[in-house]
């Protein structure tokens, strides 16, 4: 079997080492980093926009271009998360916890290096697992029914509450508020829910204006009172040595790195769960297992390694379920499935058996794109540190214009821009008084998943739907873990108050 895998890899390698394939990998990786770094642009949008172009390419090159964008965009999001406290993609939200603090401490170059190194290792580990365990992992992921998926969505919020960033009460409140906002719009049963008579809310609250407002605008409103992004008057200069030092940091924490990669891979493989939950779960688990949990949130290196390794490892997991089972592991993978179908290929077990060379070629291309990602990301990160030296009086209005135009471009309506401003003010107020904007955003992202899965539970289990939480083994384990996390955090907070 091992010989067979190695010969398949050799075939994949020969397919990838073609000039045209390499060019598309370079283009995809570059576009992915750029798209990921711009708040408001997601890999799903980029893959969607480039979909018509791939029609003119051969199936392998088309897929190579799209998966390179997908993989690189996850890293790209961490650049703005670290420099501006604004995650470029939702998957990088957890990176802000320690990444932005490091920027404030004058260690932005090192933080960016850590994020690049961790993303690389997370990606490589997940693609290696993809080579050897594609089918068993995909089969396990399919054991997640509606009750497990619902609990997994709620798990994201529970994790945020349990990692103890701010008061438990405030984080729960912010999470519930986000979940409620996320349920606005036409329901899966066709009813108009809490749209307040606005046709623009029929599709629900758009995620991009919410993310841009909550993270970017709220930060910009605060930034006008400072001369530079960082508080001190002498911003950090670009430092390639520090960046390289950060690049190898993940190797000093092998247990954290491997554990985070496994978490990312498993959660990524679960349909629709995605890198955001993976990053938060990994952060929480690393903090829980750490001997110095109090250092998390203070610019602690494992606080960047854990989410960055996990969110990149989740791409491998998501691709496993997409390619091997024909079930999209994330929204970007759903668009990728469309690209496969456009090329006359049907994702699923049939693809793995009839087009196995193409699948392994894709894995080799992904690994190659990771090496390119390191080089390109280093360049991007090096120049982005320069932002720290730009006067905020110029930077803030310019970034604000980009936020407005980026938000408007999604649906071409001013309503979305006004929503972005509303979320900006809410986010600004929340940050000021110790509420977690990340919890709100996570709620907005996870609510549609939770809502859909709950309705599926009614349809599948009927009146006794809630029993599924206790009768299905994976559900029961998730319920127990959530209860333990919440109770232990409550006890910890009580103890702290008593002291």
């Amino acid at each position, binding site marked *: 079997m091992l010989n067979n895998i190695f010969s398949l890899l050799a075939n994949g390698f020969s397919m990838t080492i073609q000039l045209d394939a390499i060019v598309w990998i370079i283009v995809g990786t570059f576009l992915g980093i750029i798209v990921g770094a711009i708040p408001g642009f997601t890999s799903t949008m980029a893959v969607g*926009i480039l979909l018509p172009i791939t029609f003119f390419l051969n199936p392998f090159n088309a897929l190579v271009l799209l998966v390179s964008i997908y993989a690189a965009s996850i890293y790209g999001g961490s650049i703005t998360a670290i420099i501006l406290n604004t995650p470029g993609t939702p998957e990088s939200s957890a990176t802000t916890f320690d990444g932005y603090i490091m920027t404030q401490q004058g260690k932005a170059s090192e933080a960016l290096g850590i994020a690049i190194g961790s993303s690389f290792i997370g990606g490589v580990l997940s693609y290696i697992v993809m080579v050897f365990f594609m089918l068993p992992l995909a089969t396990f992921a399919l054991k997640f029914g509606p009750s497990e998926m619902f609990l997994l969505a709620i798990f994201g919020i529970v994790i945020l509450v349990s990692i103890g960033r701010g008061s438990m*009460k*405030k984080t*729960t*409140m912010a999470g*519930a*508020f986000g*979940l*409620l906002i996320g*349920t606005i719009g036409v*329901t899966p*049963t066709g*009813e108009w*829910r*809490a*749209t*307040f008579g606005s046709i623009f809310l029929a599709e629900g609250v758009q995620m991009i204006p919410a993310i841009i407002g909550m993270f970017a605008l709220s930060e910009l*409103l*605060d930034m*006008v*009172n400072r001369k530079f992004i960082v508080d001190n008057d002498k911003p950090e200069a670009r430092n390639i040595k520090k960046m390289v030092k950060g690049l190898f940091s993940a190797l000093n924490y092998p247990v954290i790195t491997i554990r985070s990669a496994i978490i990312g891979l498993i959660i990524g493989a679960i349909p629709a769960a995605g890198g955001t939950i993976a990053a938060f779960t990994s952060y929480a688990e690393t903090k829980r297992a750490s001997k110095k949990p109090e250092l998390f949130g203070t610019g602690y290196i494992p606080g960047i390694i854990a989410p960055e390794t996990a969110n990149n490892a989740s791409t491998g997991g998501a691709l496993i379920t997409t390619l091997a089972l024909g079930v999209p592991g994330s929204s970007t993978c759903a668009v990728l499935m469309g690209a496969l179908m456009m090329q006359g290929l049907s994702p699923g077990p049939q693809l793995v058996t009839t087009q196995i060379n193409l699948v392994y070629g894709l894995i080799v291309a992904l690994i190659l794109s990771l090496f390119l990602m390191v080089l390109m990301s280093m360049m991007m990160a090096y120049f982005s540190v320069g932002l720290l030296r730009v*006067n*905020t*009086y*110029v930077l*803030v*209005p*310019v970034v*604000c*214009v*980009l936020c*407005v*135009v980026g938000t*408007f*471009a999604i649906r*071409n309506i*001013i309503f979305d*821009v*006004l929503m972005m*401003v509303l979320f900006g*003010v809410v986010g600004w*107020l*929340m940050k*000021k*008084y*110790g*509420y977690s904007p990340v919890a709100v955003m996570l709620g907005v992202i996870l*609510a549609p998943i*939770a*809502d859909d899965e*709950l*309705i599926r539970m*009614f349809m599948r289990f009927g009146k006794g739907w809630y029993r599924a939480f206790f009768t299905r083994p994976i559900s029961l384990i998730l319920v127990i873990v959530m209860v333990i996390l919440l109770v232990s955090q409550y006890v910890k907070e009580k103890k702290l108050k008593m002291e």
Partner: protein
Amino acid sequence: MKKMLIGSKRIVVKREILAPILMLAFSILYFFDSYKLSFSALVFPRICLIVLCITSIFTIKDCIIILNGKVCEESFEEHIEGWITKEELEPLASKKTISFFICLIIFILSLPYTGIFLGIPLFLIVSMLLLGVKNYKTLIIAPITVLLVIYIVFVYILKIPLPAGYL
């Protein structure tokens, strides 16, 4: 922070109370806009509403402190020490933040009429002047560069229609 004297009681309310009150108001609005929907459409939002209401009420309670007026007249500062954060004592927003925000709102609302070619340079120049940029080169170069980048990326490459305005 707001201090009130009701009878012999001195009531201190944190400005932070705004957040839970706004969230509670939102949940009430949400409830009245959707209470007629079917069970399946409402079960998940109801769970969220209950959690939001409970946590909001507890947070509101945490934002209010009731002191005996006579006892705490002299030692008022001691009583609220540790309970009041530094954000409570500072003004809610600085003049710069407020003026920049007003400028942004005017820019967004006028965008359909002015279009990007007039609206963006105007907003950039006015907001940079408001924030304290005095270098005339920056005031000229920044709007031209931003407009050029936006035109190339959004209009020329991505073919996304942006507001053209009446001009």
